């Protein structure tokens, strides 16, 4: 506390600035959280209760809402499973193969290396939407329409993940280690799998989380590819609520379904938040 006077600058005293900072921070924290609070409250209330006005305290219909959602026409449980399959597979494929690509660029000095590195950097920013049209035609021709495979396989080529991992390897992976492995007679592929991957684990886990969340939240492509209700992922089913027809005017179901798709990610996030927030800034320093 004594440092206050030391660190005090001309102009506004530190104590005042600190108070203002806390007020603003608390304001924005509330602004971030209040929606989820209302969501939580309303998912415990029945449609009839909600028409009567908002209350600050939860009611007792959480289970009822959940039961009517489960028994409704939207296959929410299937959606959950589909979303988990797609997101987990995507996260694993993306990080594994991006690490492999990054390792190739980082470790080997082959002809055209810089050109390839430049190329990947150049395509990094191109959004998936601009190739969506051709992509849809392609998967139609492959007979993969209305299937989750085209949501998973393309994740192998992910320039953004590659870029992050390459930056990480540049500063954290001594090439001497690879040489040492070679002298020990380890094959290149084995070196990568058993020595390199464990070494870059921190970076991999951060990217895994991002890939998982990105895929979990993805809406544009799944909405164009998936048609059968039982194959749809959560975002597509949520969007369906918005276009819901006259049978589904039970807001209790709407709120509980939103809650069901949001809160798992929030829980995962709260558990892993240290790594995630750290990961964002790490990427920033390098990028």
């Amino acid at each position, binding site marked *: 506390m004594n440092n206050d006077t030391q660190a005090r600058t001309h102009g506004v005293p530190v104590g005042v600035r600190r108070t203002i900072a806390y007020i603003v921070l608390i304001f924005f924290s509330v602004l971030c959280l209040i929606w989820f609070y209302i969501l939580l409250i309303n998912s415990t209330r029945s*449609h*009839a209760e909600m*028409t*009567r006005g908002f209350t600050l305290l939860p009611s007792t219909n959480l289970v009822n809402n959940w039961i009517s959602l489960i*028994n*409704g*026409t939207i*296959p929410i449980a299937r959606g959950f499973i589909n979303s988990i399959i797609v997101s987990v597979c995507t996260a694993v494929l993306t990080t594994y193969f991006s690490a492999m690509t990054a390792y190739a660029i980082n470790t080997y000095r082959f002809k055209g290396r810089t050109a390839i590195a430049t190329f990947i950097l150049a395509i990094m920013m191109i959004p998936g939407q601009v190739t969506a049209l051709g992509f849809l035609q392609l998967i139609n021709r492959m007979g993969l*329409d209305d299937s989750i495979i085209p949501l998973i396989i393309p994740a192998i080529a992910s320039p953004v993940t590659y870029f992050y991992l390459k930056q990480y390897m540049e500063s954290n992976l001594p090439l001497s280690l690879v040489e040492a492995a070679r002298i020990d007679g380890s094959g290149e592929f084995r070196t990568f799998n058993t020595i390199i991957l464990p070494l870059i684990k921190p970076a991999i886990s951060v990217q895994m989380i991002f890939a998982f969340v990105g895929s979990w939240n993805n809406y544009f492509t799944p909405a164009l590819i998936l*048609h*059968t*209700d*039982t194959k749809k992922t959560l975002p597509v089913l949520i969007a*369906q609520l918005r*276009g*819901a*027809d*006259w*049978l589904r*005017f039970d*807001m209790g179901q709407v709120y509980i379904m939103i809650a069901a798709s949001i809160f798992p990610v929030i829980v995962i996030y709260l558990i892993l938040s240290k790594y995630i927030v750290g990961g964002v800034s790490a990427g920033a320093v390098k990028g």
Partner: protein
Amino acid sequence: MKKKVLGLLLSTTMVAGMLTACGSTASNAPASTETPAAETPAADTAAESPAADTAAEAPAADVSADEGKVLNISAWNEEFKSRLTDHYPGYEVVDGTTGKIGDVTVNWLITPNEENAYQNRLDELLLAQDGAAADDKVDLFLVEADYAVKYTDTDYTLSVTDLGLTANDMKDQYKYTQDVVTDSNGVIKGTSWQGCPGVMIYNRAIAEEVFGSQEPEDIQAHFSDWNKFVESAAELKKAGYNVISSTADTFRVYQNNAELPWVNGTQIQVDDNLKKWVEDSKALADAGYCGTHGQWTDDWTKGFYPEGKVFAYFGPAWLIDFSMAKDVEGSIAHDGGWAATEGPQGFYWGGTWICAAAGTDNAGLVADIMKKMTCDPEIMKDIVLKDNDFVNNRTVMEELANDPSYSNEVLGGQNPLKMFCAGADNIDMANLTAYDQGLLGDYQTAMGDYINGNYATYDEALEQFYTLALQRYPELTR
């Protein structure tokens, strides 16, 4: 011209149902040979009415013996599913999206209607039909009047006569329900269990309070034309009620009374009556007599409860039974607080037709479903008694219209069927085009913005309508 011819046809139907039967048989000459064979079982079921349930289960199983074991039904909501569940003999519910008829699994492919999503999905399914495995093929799909032509005038739908439905089976159906699904060669490509004449459904309690009576005749006097409608709306406003929930409620009434079809050749045309809807609605909304939200929204359904303070909705029988929250405690429908009257103008709304998809491996079962649900007077009567739907069977409807023991609980014991029967006779769907659903949606979107004051003039909104329409249908012109 076309409309007049149809009108004439309709009036003929009114005189004698038999004539229609002859007419249909004549136009479907090639099928007439099948008639005697197919007629007998249909007559049987009708005769053995008490035992209908048990007797019908047998044919259902028979029919599917050498057919596919999966029946795929494409629909945009649950209405037909609940009809089939409640009234098709032998249908068992497995879960939310599957059922069973005998040893055949019934798969419901339900895609909501919004933004043409249902049509887009159905297009994909039908176009992929040839390459699909037998169990993945669509066997039966539902269409609405707004776009029925798009499907019936193609080879993707089967003629019902080829499936085994005879003119005699369909003799009691309202003629217009057949016109909607008759293709350009005069072949009937679908069939419906319901008719959809619309009425004005008003809140008895509010009527009593504001107009001093809740009797349909008295209320009708206050709403017999659009001028009186506005006057009464003002009175309701003074008492704190909205005359209708939203401006969208009257759209169908004006649109049905339009002279022009939406599209002539490839040119989009906007009828004067639609412009009148816009102007009248703007006046209503500006005066605060009603809201401007869309139908099927949370706000729209508020009026189904007393707190919503809405005097009336416009709708057909299926709206009363299916949408007004009659099972929810505290709703007006639950307490039988509604009543029905004709309102300012006659109209119709919706209606669902069953079509058989070309390539189906369950033709026999599809035909049986069509026959039982849309031709069997016993089952259809049962639908009226249990669900208060208006069924596509003149004899049944007229019988019940004159049956004092029939009453609609949602409507507080009123028997509205005479009104519906009269309305059904006047339905004229000659103006339908394949583009109606998309175009009337876009028109309402653009005009809704004008009514809300987001466009300064009607012409600006019209411009926006054309923009949206041409985005949706590049083949059309303005």
